[in-house]
């Protein structure tokens, strides 16, 4: 074990040395030349026929536990709008105002360490690309569930621009290898994703002179008005929602865990939405099979289903719409209380009388709220429940994204994850005052 630890540390230090050398050339690159290369990398990844996309599709599902259909569609939707042009526009929006007038310059961090988490490729792709835009070499530790994405991204960068390819290094070490972790976290800028405990632990290891950008766990929900609880509106709602739930097996921070139905007769509307959503999830299962799950995850689903059965048996208006095994579960609740969410396509549908109740129900989760899929408020009966008013309430809660169902898993490249700008948190500036 000690031998392995020492080897990992030696490899890490060697990678850092190579990045220090590569940095020299990176600093000499022109803005346009650098950006052009990174745009070409993005375009490579957008192309479903590029060898990098095909390799990710071939290697990722087994390691991450997703079906290949999920990875294929998830990448297709996710990368749809992540074009070179989108990258340029995002940079223009975030950096140009900072640099306007020539009195300020980007001062690239000598090294950015990126600690990846989870098994969804999209955030990993972006996090490993952005520091290069700012001329900072990147040291990446992949997540144990996804050792593929960062490695392939590095390969694609090297293919497009060999010199730039030398500015990204992928390392691996066990999470309990303190010496490796300490060396890894010694970078001038550290970006980390993970559960809140991990983010807390990493942040405590960061010194005052270092930059730290942490992305903790988040969750998303859907909010549905009466325009989407019947007829064509309902059909469109469950089509979109089922996709949001099925993609990445509900493991992403943009996966909805709960659906809140605001309706004059909310209980009846909840039943309609629940039944329709269950039917649609059954279709999605054929199109996008859920990945295998471990016994603990299946036990959590089984437990929550039984618990809902017990509440139903106690006389509560609770109903279950589930697959035979644990493939998907829709629980129609009779209140808006938050209960455990076992993930892996397990969703609860809650009744609400109005928007005020919605805000109260979401308040305990405000700090974790990422995305909200909103539908059915176009012809709202009440001015207080109009789409604009609800959106304002959600913004005040801290939701970082409000969109229509079916689009949750396709955030634009410029999406301010956790409410933060995309590239600005990674940038360091020097103000150049006139003598």
């Amino acid at each position, binding site marked *: 074990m000690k031998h392995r630890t020492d080897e990992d540390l030696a490899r890490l230090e060697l990678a850092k040395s190579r990045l220090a050398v590569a940095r020299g050339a990176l600093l000499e690159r022109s803005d346009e030349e650098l950006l052009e290369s990174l745009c070409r990398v993005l375009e490579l990844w957008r192309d479903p026929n590029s060898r990098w996309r095909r390799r990710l599709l071939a290697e990722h599902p087994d390691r*991450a*536990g997703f079906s290949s259909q999920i990875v294929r569609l998830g990448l297709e939707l996710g990368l749809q709008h992540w074009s070179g042009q989108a990258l340029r526009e995002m940079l223009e929006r975030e950096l140009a105002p900072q640099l306007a007038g020539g009195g300020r310059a980007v001062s690239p961090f000598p090294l950015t360490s990126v600690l990846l*988490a*989870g*098994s*969804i490729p999209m955030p990993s792709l972006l996090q490993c690309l952005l520091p290069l835009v700012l001329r900072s070499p990147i040291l990446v530790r992949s997540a*144990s*569930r996804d050792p593929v994405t960062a490695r392939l991204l590095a390969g694609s960068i090297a293919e497009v621009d060999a010199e730039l390819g030398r500015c990204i290094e992928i390392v691996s070490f066990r*999470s*309990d290898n303190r010496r490796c972790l300490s060396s890894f976290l010694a970078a001038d800028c550290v970006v980390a*994703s*993970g*559960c*809140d*405990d*991990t983010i807390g632990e990493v942040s405590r290891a960061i010194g005052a002179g270092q930059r730290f950008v942490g*992305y903790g*766990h*988040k*969750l*998303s929900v859907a909010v549905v008005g009466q325009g989407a609880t019947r007829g064509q509106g309902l059909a469109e709602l469950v089509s979109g929602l089922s996709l949001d739930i099925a993609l*990445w*097996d*509900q*493991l*992403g*921070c943009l*996966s909805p*865990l709960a659906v809140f139905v605001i309706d004059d007769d909310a209980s009846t509307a909840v039943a309609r939405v629940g039944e329709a959503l269950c039917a649609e999830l059954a279709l999605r299962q054929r199109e996008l099979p859920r990945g295998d799950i*471990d*016994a*603990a995850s*299946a*036990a*959590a*689903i*089984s*437990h*929550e289903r*039984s*618990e809902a*059965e*017990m*509440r*139903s*048996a*106690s*006389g509560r208006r609770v109903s279950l719409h589930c697959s035979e*095994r*644990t493939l998907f579960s829709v629980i129609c609740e009779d209140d808006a*209380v*938050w*209960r*455990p*969410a*076992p*993930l892996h396509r397990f969703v609860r549908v809650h009744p609400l009388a109005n928007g005020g109740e919605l805000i109260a129900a979401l308040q*305990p*989760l405000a700090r*974790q709220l990422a995305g909200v899929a909103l539908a059915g408020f176009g012809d709202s009966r009440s001015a207080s429940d109009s789409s604009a008013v609800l959106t304002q309430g959600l913004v005040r809660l801290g939701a970082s994204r409000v969109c229509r169902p079916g689009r949750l898993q396709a955030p634009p490249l410029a999406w301010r994850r956790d409410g933060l700008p995309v590239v600005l948190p990674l940038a360091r500036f020097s103000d150049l005052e006139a003598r």
Partner: protein
Amino acid sequence: MIAEGRAAIEAELLAWMREGAWCEDEERFDRLARALFAFQRSSCTTYRRFCETRGRTVENVASWRDIPAVPTGAFKEMRLRCFASERTQMVFRTSGTSGQRRGELHLDTLEIYEASLWRTLQELLFPDLGDSRRPPAIRVLAPSPLEAPESSLSYMLSCLLQRLGSPRSGFDIVQGTVRVDGLIAAIQAAGDNDESLALCGTAFAFVHLLEALEKRGIELHCPEGSRIMETGGFKGRSRELPRAELYALLSARLGVPEHRIVNQYGMTELGSQFYDSVLIDPSGPRRKLGPPWTRVRLIDPESGREVAGDAAGMVVIHDLANTGSVAAIQSADVARRVLSDAGEQLGFELLGREPGAEARGCSIAADSMLARE
């Protein structure tokens, strides 16, 4: 013959709990379990309706294995009891922060509860403490029942302390803080008097104690024959330790060998508890054992059927000591059977997710999140 009515079941159970040597006695367990099922199904409306949705009646439950199990989460949502509320003597509640729903076990008698816990402690935590041995000093790293009147752990350890502890026994958590100085003095006094120690408490409290000892650079040496019993997880706490690491640190700092450190697996919703086997079978594999009036089934959560061999399954416990609520409990824990070389079932091993294990996604189970609020 099926015992009729709860009183008859409890009388037979108490007699079983007071027997000298433990005996699995499958026939007796099955008979009592089915009798208790019949009583609980008729006395608890919610449970009866739940059984109806599962198509289970007294007539078609041919074996205790057919009895429907209630999920532990249900104890947070409803009062599952088979007696009138005015007869309630004690309510134990699961731990949790304000605003969180807490599971509740309602009891109208403590006789069975105490008989079960005492007999199990004797057998599995103090198997080496015959009548001739001096009572140990029991130091408790949990709040006393005065501070935590709803904690089943505090109640259990208080019973233990009163029945078995030497005068040097006591509670070492006061107002939420481990009294490190007092505990150190007690350990040293036990050593001076050649009195064995039993340190019992939550894993989280032991972590705090270890941190305090490390800060002071103190290594203690508990007298020979001492033991540690720890229980509970770290959910929502500030520091997590893998159990192997915790045991290594406890052994190094307190001088108690790892083979005398016992994990207790219990739930507020249960009347009985399970303990590591290390004290009654030091040479065998570490696994969980419980009293003969309990049974553990490991269920494939996908199919609902019992798993075969040593495959992982969801833990379902049938605990006859739960006479006043529901005896069959479904947890969300996962375990596997520990088998002998000949394939005989020796006990079970919990397969909890190790602290720090990576999640697959960036979403979060709402219960984990709420635990931190």
